[in-house]
């Protein structure tokens, strides 16, 4: 049992290691000091006010949000279609196709980023928002495919066959039977894709159109000088969005599931 206690303490320490730095950012966001670090001089919301007055950051926020939502939409749509084909039909070379769909995870992101840029260069196309969107969609696609596929395997084919035999056409069957059953995975996949896009920096630095920033690249640029207190406030807002929204969605889903 002594060994077990050691394991317990060790685990707690690892969890502290994972969360203490994040907690410090959340804490420092409310520091009234004009420097981004310690010591804490007092409680203040002024850095949040400063944040909302900063036009560059607000513009980056808008770009990131739109990009994230569109990425979630496209990646989820492509992912559902591909998963349906792979799970519901006999496709020759299924293993190969799956590996191909997963390939963006296996190739280092830096290589993906440079490759797409070189391809664009060969096509003489400038970098644009559309390129960024396509790129993010590709990076998010594997995760959506894996999540949706896992769920689809668990939905019995009999439901769809019953709908078909009762006279529904394939589209009706999909929208009225398969999709509602698939909804949890669709939400999870979309949320996943949004977070991946909202958080991406490695490839985005390469792909962003000239003069355009997303929140992570904006922070990256600001870090070059020093850690300004504004970045802490921005970090706070980002964490609330990317952690708070999924947690709330999950919590609400549980709440409603219990009510029913």
């Amino acid at each position, binding site marked *: 049992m002594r060994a077990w206690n050691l394991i317990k303490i060790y685990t707690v320490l*690892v969890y502290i290691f*994972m969360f203490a730095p*994040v907690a410090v950012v959340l804490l420092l966001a409310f520091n009234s000091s004009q420097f981004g670090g310690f010591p804490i001089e007092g409680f203040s919301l002024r850095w949040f006010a400063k944040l909302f007055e900063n036009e560059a950051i607000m513009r980056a926020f808008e770009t990131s949000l739109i990009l994230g939502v569109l990425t979630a939409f496209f990646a989820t749509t492509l992912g559902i279609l591909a998963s349906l084909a792979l799970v519901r039909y006999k496709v020759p070379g299924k293993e190969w196709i799956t590996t191909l769909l*997963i390939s963006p995870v296996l190739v280092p992101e830096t*290589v993906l980023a440079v490759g797409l840029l070189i391809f664009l260069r060969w096509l003489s196309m400038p970098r644009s928002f559309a390129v960024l969107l396509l790129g993010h969609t590709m990076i998010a696609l594997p995760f959506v495919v*894996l999540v949706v596929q*896992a769920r689809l395997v668990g939905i019995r084919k009999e439901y769809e066959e019953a709908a078909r035999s009762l006279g529904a056409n394939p589209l009706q069957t999909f929208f009225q039977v398969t999709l509602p059953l698939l909804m949890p995975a669709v939400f999870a996949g979309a949320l996943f894709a949004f977070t991946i896009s909202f958080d991406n920096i490695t490839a985005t630095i390469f792909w962003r159109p000239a003069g355009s920033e997303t929140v992570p690249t904006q922070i*990256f640029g600001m870090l070059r000088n020093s*850690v300004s207190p504004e970045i802490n406030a921005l970090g706070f807002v980002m964490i609330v969005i990317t952690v708070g929204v999924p947690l709330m969605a999950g919590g609400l889903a549980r709440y409603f599931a219990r009510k029913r």
Partner: protein
Amino acid sequence: MAKATAFDPRPWYLLSPALLAIAFLVIAPICFILVYSFYINVDLGVDEVAFQFGNWQDLLTDSYYHNAIWKTFRMAVIVTVLAAFLGYIPAYFIAHTNFRRKWLLLLLLILPFWVSFIIRTMSWIHIMGNQGAINGVLIWLGLTDEPISMMYNEFAVIVGFIHVFLPYMILNVYVSLEGIDRNLEPAARTLGCTPWQAFREVTLPLSLPGLAAGSLLVFVLTAGSYVTPIILGGPNDFLFGNLIYDAVVSELNWPMGATLSFTLLFLLGIVVVIYSRFMGLNQLYKALS
């Protein structure tokens, strides 16, 4: 396999958008990387179509590049080994605990994936920097007058990497530990094993697939990074990815950027192939979803 079944085009309609996207956004670009690596860089952002091996010759003869490859390999190995040691025990705890709120521990493990990578990396400046928490405590305790410099060196980069990649390791090991029959360890104990022996000869070997999948992910992700060294490292703490970043973003030397990118892809490709020979990629898919 019945040969008589006619070709069914329907799945291909469904697959075509995703496959087209992969073809144009992954396959074609990688081919172009290879083609561009033979071009000549004339000036800033200007290159000439050619078929010559100048870039490859530079890569193979210039010790600057060899040094970067070695440094990257070393860093990836250090981060992977440390992540394995740090991550195995928590995974074991989560898998074996009787704690009623186990779901909370798992949720906390997934939570970091949702916290922005750049914020998590930056947060170490608040911990180890001159105005960071550690120096703040040391000065407050009167142990030192001047802040101790801990940032912008290799150690800070290692810490930053482990912080970001550790959850991958823990999750992979956990998935694999969770799949082991709970009766095996007690069985080994009744047959006379000490607890440590039972762990070493039963549980550890059975959890190796998860440990291997986690290690592969951490290794490949570390070796392909360039952002963490820029934020947490000093001028000498660059990785191979930083050379690519410099070539493409700063020097606009596309042919060399292409050569370096293809090299990185090739070297990490070897690692993935070796892994999949022994383990297969299924374990990886399982962990990713």
